[in-house]
């Protein structure tokens, strides 16, 4: 009987541990793509600004828009991290 209770307890802990690991991996994986994407957006925006400094204002606004759209995916992963862990 005592062994059974211990087994049940460790099963619960195992589930919690696994879901924590899963949440960590999910957020890590969700950060890869947007990381590369934001790098592209900002890199190309800087290149465009260097080539045509007179367009700086428009390019910066568009860059922030691009970052916002790309970043959303990483943030979904961040929220999922808390949902999966809880």
């Amino acid at each position, binding site marked *: 009987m005592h062994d059974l209770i211990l087994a049940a307890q460790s099963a619960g802990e195992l589930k919690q541990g696994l879901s924590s690991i899963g949440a960590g991996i999910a957020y890590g994986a969700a950060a890869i793509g947007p990381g590369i994407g934001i790098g592209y957006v900002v890199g190309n925006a800087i290149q465009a600004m260097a080539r045509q400094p007179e367009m700086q204002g428009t390019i910066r606004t568009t860059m*922030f828009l691009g970052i916002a759209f790309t970043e*959303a995916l990483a943030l979904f992963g961040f929220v999922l991290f808390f949902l999966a862990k*809880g």
Partner: protein
Amino acid sequence: MLGAFTFPPIDEIFVWKDIAFKDTAFAINKTSLLVLITALLIVTIFVAGTRRMKLVPGGVQNVIEMTYDFVDRGITRDIVGNDATRFTPFLGSLFLFILFLNLWEIIPFIQFPPTSRMAIPLYLALQTYVIYWYVGLRHHGLKYLTGHLFPPGVPWPLYVLVTPIELVQVVLVRPFSLAVRLLANMMAGHILLTALALLTAYSLKNAPIISPGPFLLNIAVTGFELLVGFLQAYIFTLLTAVYIGDSLHPDH
């Protein structure tokens, strides 16, 4: 050395006890109190600052005019269009409200951004949602909907693919990502600052030699959060402007 350091459960740094009107629908906690204070603060600053307007502005009036100009030129005219200055008051108050709410994150002794609770970003995003649907339907009627779902210039077999994607995009993804972006950014900032502050306190007690590390990092991150708070307010307003502009001139 730092093996025993435990971070408190996440609820502990986001959920606050009720201060007044306990157990009713109008219960007030730290979050809603900060929202009320923010609203009153903005109204007070603007009413007091524009009471005696001068032709050559100075002091508070100058700051107010610069803010209005920033929203009017940088956001409304650039993104929505020159014919849409009637949206400037809405976009301006949206920008200021979110900015002030975000800045509570780094004000000493308060240090909690109310925008890191889902209710506030979600409400603001739904407000945007209702406004851009209303503008689109009012200016273009049902053509607004069909223009979105069946974009012209696409070969008709592709509508099988395009229409569901556009439907999910307009109905679900736009307001959801708008709210989640603001929420997750402020939440991440708050968690980061809390973790660094706790780490400073803990290392001061157990290993004082390394405590300047987290302390200096905490100050640096506080400066970074000032930038993030401003940027998120700007991005939220900018995207609202983009969505409204998309409803006004869908063909651009």
